[in-house]
């Protein structure tokens, strides 16, 4: 004796946001029922476990039928099969493309290839995100990547147009695509303390200032690839550390400005040359793809860690970098002001974001 067939179809598609979340999180129907029972939904309407199971199955079926449409969200708006309110459509899409920070942290900067996909069970075990959910998130990354990789125009804009995502989520995806394209190393132990949002912010800075798109809006891949010319020009900055006079001059300018303004002044003065060398060397090496990948690890090793060991506060850091950047303008023999600004603007904001515990 068993219910062999059990369906419920509403003219307006009924979707429970809680069940949707469970489905997205990769719960099986039975697990989802358990979670819902614990959540106390049964008391709400004098429901029994059977009712809950039937409802959960129905909802899961609906979501599975919708999933195809969610792969190209634009279709959701003009398909005829499900009558879903625009607001609900937006919620469905937004949630479907949402991801776990823990998961994305694991794949950020990795190649979105079959090889990575095979490692998903490890990632699932490590992050305690279900494999099913991992797969969905990974496929979302890959799908977005594939679509925008060959489109012209601004990256965030393209993502938002094609996947109808919110501004925030669109930017996050842009970061993911950008990281995947440039294969930035994010997995090293030293980088573990950084959250996805830290990286996403940095990605935004890089996209807005260092890519081809920052100068020309209509180039293919404009937001995904770094501006090669700019990277070449960065080599010129080496003069700041190779020319001894310039280095000393720069140091004294910075020290004059900082004196008395911070407790960490002594450490700053002592470390100035080291830190400056670190930053300029990073700039000079960015023409190598390998060094681009190590960009973040270099920032941490060459700059953030020394500062941290000297117990700079965030305010110290801010003060130091501001004066460090501005003082270069006063150096009369230093001719690369534009490149310097473009470089230091990003470095400054990245370091501000990354300088925490």
């Amino acid at each position, binding site marked *: *004796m*068993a*219910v*062999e*067939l*059990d*369906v*419920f*179809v*509403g*003219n*307006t*598609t*009924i979707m429970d946001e809680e069940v949707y979340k469970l489905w997205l999180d990769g719960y099986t129907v039975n697990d989802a029922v358990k979670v819902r029972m614990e959540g106390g939904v049964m008391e*709400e*309407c*004098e*429901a*029994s476990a*059977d*009712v*809950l199971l*039937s*409802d959960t*199955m*129905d909802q899961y*079926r609906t979501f*599975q*039928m919708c999933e195809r449409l969610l792969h*190209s969200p*634009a*279709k959701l*708006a*003009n*398909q*005829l*099969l*499900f*009558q879903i*309110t*625009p*607001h609900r*459509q*937006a919620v469905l899409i937004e949630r479907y493309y949402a991801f776990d920070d823990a998961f994305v942290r694991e794949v950020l900067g990795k190649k979105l290839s079959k090889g990575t996909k095979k490692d998903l069970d490890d990632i699932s075990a490590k992050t305690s995100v279900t494999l099913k959910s991992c797969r969905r998130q990974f496929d979302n990354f890959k799908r977005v990547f594939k*679509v925008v990789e*060959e*489109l*012209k*125009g*601004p990256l*965030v*804009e393209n993502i*938002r*147009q*094609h996947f*109808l995502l919110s*501004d925030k989520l*669109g930017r996050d995806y842009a970061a993911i695509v950008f990281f995947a394209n440039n294969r930035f190393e994010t997995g090293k132990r030293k980088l573990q303390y950084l959250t996805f949002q830290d990286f996403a912010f940095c990605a935004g800075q890089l996209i807005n200032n260092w890519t081809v798109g920052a100068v020309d*809006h*209509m180039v293919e891949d404009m937001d995904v690839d770094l501006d090669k010319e700019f990277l070449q020009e960065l080599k010129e900055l080496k003069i700041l550390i190779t020319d001894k006079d310039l280095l000393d001059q720069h140091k004294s300018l910075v020290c004059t400005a900082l004196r008395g303004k911070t407790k960490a002044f002594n450490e700053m003065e002592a470390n100035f040359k080291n830190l400056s060398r670190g930053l300029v060397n990073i700039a000079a090496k960015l023409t190598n793809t390998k060094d681009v990948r190590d960009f973040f690890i270099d920032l941490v090793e060459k700059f953030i860690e020394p500062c941290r060991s000297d117990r700079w506060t965030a305010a110290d850091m801010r003060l130091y970098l501001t004066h460090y950047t501005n003082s270069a303008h006063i150096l009369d023999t230093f001719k690369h002001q534009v490149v310097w600004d473009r470089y230091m603007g990003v470095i400054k904001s990245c370091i501000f974001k990354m300088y925490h515990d």
Partner: protein
Amino acid sequence: MPGKLKAKIVAGRHLPVMDRASDLTDAFVEVKFGNTTFKTDVFPKSLNPQWNSEWFKFEVDDEDLQDEPLQVTVLDHDTYSANDAIGKVYIDIDPLLCTEAASVISGWFPIYDTIHGIRGEINVLVKVELFNDLNRFRQSSCGVKFFCTTSIPRCYRAAMVHGFVEELVVNEDPEYQWIDRIRTPRASNEARQRLISLMSGELQRKIGLKVLEMGGNAVVGYLQCFDLEGESGLVVRAIGTACTLDKLSSGSAPNTNTHTHPNTAPASNACNSPSKDGKEPVFGEDLLSSSGPPTPFRALPTSSSSPPPPFSPSKPCSRQSSSSDTDLSLTPKTGMGSGGSVGKEAGPLKTLLRQQTQTALEQRGASSSGLLINTGEFPFFTLTSFPPGFLVHVGGVVSARSVKLLDRIHNPALGNTRSYKLLDWNSVTADEPETRDAWWEEIRQEIKSHAKALGCHAVVGYSESTSICEEVCILSASGTASILNPRFMREGCLDIGIADHRFEEPSPPSCGFCHIPYDELNMPFPAQLTYCYHCRRQKVPDVLFTTIDLPSEASVTGKGCLIQARLCRLKKKAQGEVNATAISNMLPFMEYELHTQLMNKLKLRSMNALFGLHIQISVGENMLLGLASATGVYLTALPAPGGIQIAGKTPGDLSNDHISTIQKRINDTIAKNKELYQINPPKLFALDPEVFCGINMELNEELVGSPIPEPRHRSRLFRSHSESSDEVSELDLSHGKKDAFVLEIDDTDAVEDIHSLLIDAPPPSGFYSCNTEVMPGINTWTSGVQMFTSVRVFRLSNANLTNQGLNKIFTDLCENLLKSFYFKLRSMIPCCLCHLNFTVAVPEDELIQVAVTAVAMTFDKDQTQEKPAEKPITKGSGDTEEQLQFSMELCADSSLANSQPPSKISGVPESSNISSRAASVDYGSFADRCSTWLELLRLKAHTIRRGSVKTISSLERSSPLPDGRSRSLRSTRSFGGTSVTVVKMTPLSFLPGTRIIKYLGIINMFFIRETTSLREEGGVSGFLHSFIAEVFAMVRAHVAALGGNAVVSYSMKECVFMENPNKNQAQCLINVSGDAVICVRESDPEATPSMTNSAQSCSSETDTAT
């Protein structure tokens, strides 16, 4: 050449990939009507082809226009092999044949394939140019409007109700062996779909002809069903109520035109009716002479002189009468006599009295059939709610069933691809006694005679149904015997109407219909009569069962609720006549038991009337299923129900602990239910009849425009006054336990029964449920509407089931379904499930299938709670006042006021472009630059980042042609700026908070879906889930293409599901119907449909104007 049909194929979108190599499709379209076919060019390599074809023109007879659908087939061109079909769209062009309905069909239709389901969409434009044909002998009936709605459609006024129309057409099923070879080729499914579509069209045309003959212009309450009889064929049959409807042309109309005041209505009808052209009176006279008293029925001596139907003794406490028999005449006519066990059987004297009544009734019947001159053969009405004043008295439910053997039928009409049975069944029956027409005639005659036995001349809320299992077929018909106001019939009968005393009684509308139509001394069955608790002038029964909706003017105490009786009976497997005999022997017992259950449950809820009663008996190989659903209410006019008394076998048993616990539980339940449904019957009424009558008299004197001459009125009043003196004692007595319903516990079965009585859980708080149009006691609907369909199939694994066990399973199945609904819809609380329509079937040996369609509607809780609170206080005088206001003001907008009392009919005339189509539904992309959600979002996005303007222009420049891989995604988004109109659906005749401004035509669609990869589609549930969703989508698309934004009176009339999991196959047939309408929000009277559409639609892609 009476008509020119024009079709244009605009574009397609979301097409499936038909060429694996290129991941694209070379699509073209064939447009077929009748035997003419046109083709579009092939649009190569695109999933979103833009054909933009020329206008394909078909010059056809209007007869064909009515019968045939336009068939649009989308194919994939293949140079080397046969072209592959992608799918089809059938477009019913009937709505275009009515000047008042839609003028053009235009929109995106899902491309449907019976194997793959929906495969993309196609944009089609259809127009019809109709030339007037005044040929009297024409076979077409263009212009007759059809409505599924079982009340006078809003925005129309009934100038005349002509009566019952019916027709059936028979054909061979193109796939009569489908059960054996469940694997059906696509072609066979399509042939079937097309045939049923053709037959429906033909049926509608023939019914339309009958309506024209009667002088009507519309069919209301149109109910079409099909019977899949397997090898013996396919029957499509329909019944309806012919009417002459006047359109309320402008906003000012409701105040005058809708007012169907008894005195003025017939006079104005005569000149208002649009159908009154030159030759109409001729029709009228014909009918007058032909359908007068010497109807075939009168000529049938058997039915009129036969003794009272056997049902009566067995129904001591109800107003229900029924009977069943077979064509084999195997049913013992007195089978129900055993029902006398309840102990109220009358002696021979009673029988004698009854016989006398019968003759008296016959006389009366004769006079009334004279009145209802235009209702023809059968004074049946498929309507379930009526304009105020239409329904005078209600007698009770009448039903008839008959068991037939299908293999014994030869059908002369078979063999042709289409049967042409013209005229009505009268002329045919003599020659073909064994056709289905004759079967139905038999049943209708029976219904008619039952109605007569109840002293009624008409049957309202009439419906017919069948249940087929192999070669056995149960035909059922039921309705509510009643007396109607002849003023709504043809004008000629007005005089007779006044002469008949029953029609001039000034019964208040809130209780008049409860008054007994039969002679109180010679009741057709034993019942306890009391004086009406409302007006105290006339007798009312203690319980009232009806198949109609609660009249809007009826006064009700508290709220109503869904009451179901469920029953399973095992049956031995048998063949042929033995089987039919067994079934027909079981039927009366099943009906009796269902009835008892209903009665007990009604009492348990402390209610005294059932509305919308629908009893379904389904037959399977080894069992019979019975399901009775109704909405229970407490009618203020009827006496309070007594409790339920439990009794042991002997009086001594009463001391038994067991029995007293049960008794206590029952009493507790009754008390709880009283509270739950807010049933606080007014008690002050009986206190001082003198005072009451005084008030009543005063009010009556003030009644302006009363149709009743003053003197007679007065004398009538006096009579009631004098009568009331001896009422008081009677009323007081009835409050006691005297009439308590006694349940005898004499064996374990009885105990089980009582337990099952108590099993029915009340809906969780915040929920109400009913199976009528609206919930009695709730009238503050808000706009939340959610229509749904749910299907469950239960497999019985245990072969050794008992009747009791089966009953339990069946009851649990229904209860669990309800519980599921409550749970799923909990976000809508406070809400009411309305029009809960359960359909049961036994598709296979051990399967029980229950399908439910209903609508959940939100309401304003605060206002409803106030109502019952003040009601008891204002009883007596206050209520009478209310009624007076009602008759003067609310009657003014008759059908509109129905169940929507707060609706304000403003005098704003409809804007003239209402008739022109909603602009936003247009196929062109230009139309949708409106700021919808998505666009707003996008605009916002543009402002956020640099270069946004340039981006847009680049997208616009990009061609929709998929010329490279990088563009493929963009191209999927380039199907022009279209919008998906939100289409609301409801099984009710209205949408709360909205006003229907136009009926666009009937939707009647039939689909078959089949799969050979059941597992891959998510099993049976996945398969059916997507199919039902697809059916909804196709209905919505058709409505949107007609320019509508809602479907009212939607119903799923058939859902036949078959599976063969071993072969990984399943097949399902679904038949749905409803009325496509344009409705606007009540709050904005100026709103034109186009505004509503654009407001409700969501545009997806507007920047790629092509």
